[in-house]
């Protein structure tokens, strides 16, 4: 019963996350939008777990654990870059050029 709406809302949230990644230049905000995308996916999993078994929820568990690890390392990288470049604006960070 709740599956349809849940999937719709999940789609919208995911799209919002993508739009945010494309719109923003601040590295941290982009990161947050990625987290938003992950959450949207979590919602899908949980919604389908109602129908297909508890494996969906177990997967969400793992997603959260990995997201936590990813956030820690990612933010550490941003910190390190900030130390060198004094900015987190992605437009100014183009060391990968060429």
């Amino acid at each position, binding site marked *: 019963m709740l599956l349809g709406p849940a999937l719709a809302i999940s789609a919208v949230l995911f799209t919002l996350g993508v739009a945010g990644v494309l*719109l923003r230049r601040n590295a*941290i905000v982009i990161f947050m939008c990625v987290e938003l995308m992950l959450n949207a996916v*979590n919602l899908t999993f949980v919604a*389908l777990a109602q129908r297909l078994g508890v494996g969906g929820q177990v997967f969400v568990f793992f997603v959260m654990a990995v997201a936590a690890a990813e956030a820690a390392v990612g933010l550490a990288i941003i910190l390190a870059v900030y130390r060198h470049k004094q900015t987190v604006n992605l437009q100014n960070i183009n060391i990968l050029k060429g």
Partner: protein
Amino acid sequence: MTLTFFWIFGVIAMAGGLLCITRKNPIGSALWLVVTLFALAAMYVLLDAQFIAALQVLVYAGAIMVLFLFVIMLLNLGRPGPSDIKGPVGVGVAALLAGTLLLQLRVLGQAAPPEAIQLPAGTMAALQQQGMVAAVAGPLFDAYLIPFEITSLLLLAAIVGAVVLAKRKL
């Protein structure tokens, strides 16, 4: 009833997401994301995933977002400054791509949902007895034991990595 509440929290989540991506101030973005996460936790409860809802609040909203806020404040990004939202061209491209994505997802969503699995008789009653925590924990230590253990290794690697990367001097 459930549906109404579901929609209420759904709208809150979507609004929160929209506001998150449009705030100039990163602190604002972070806080609106927290709102979204809370709304999602409520939705999980309504979807019979209480354990996951609790985890959402504890881990996501509680730990990860706090970490975000710490980093933002550490880098002194909370002050108002020049906006980091892209100009009209960027907005146009983002709108186009996001719109296309939404359309495609809607199309996918129209597909017939998969058949619900047939649980053996009496399983739901047993589950009600156990509670959802046990329902999730069972497979976790049973069928998904190896991923569980690897995840712990992953977390260890993340800790070490974060420390190494963020240190001023090794």
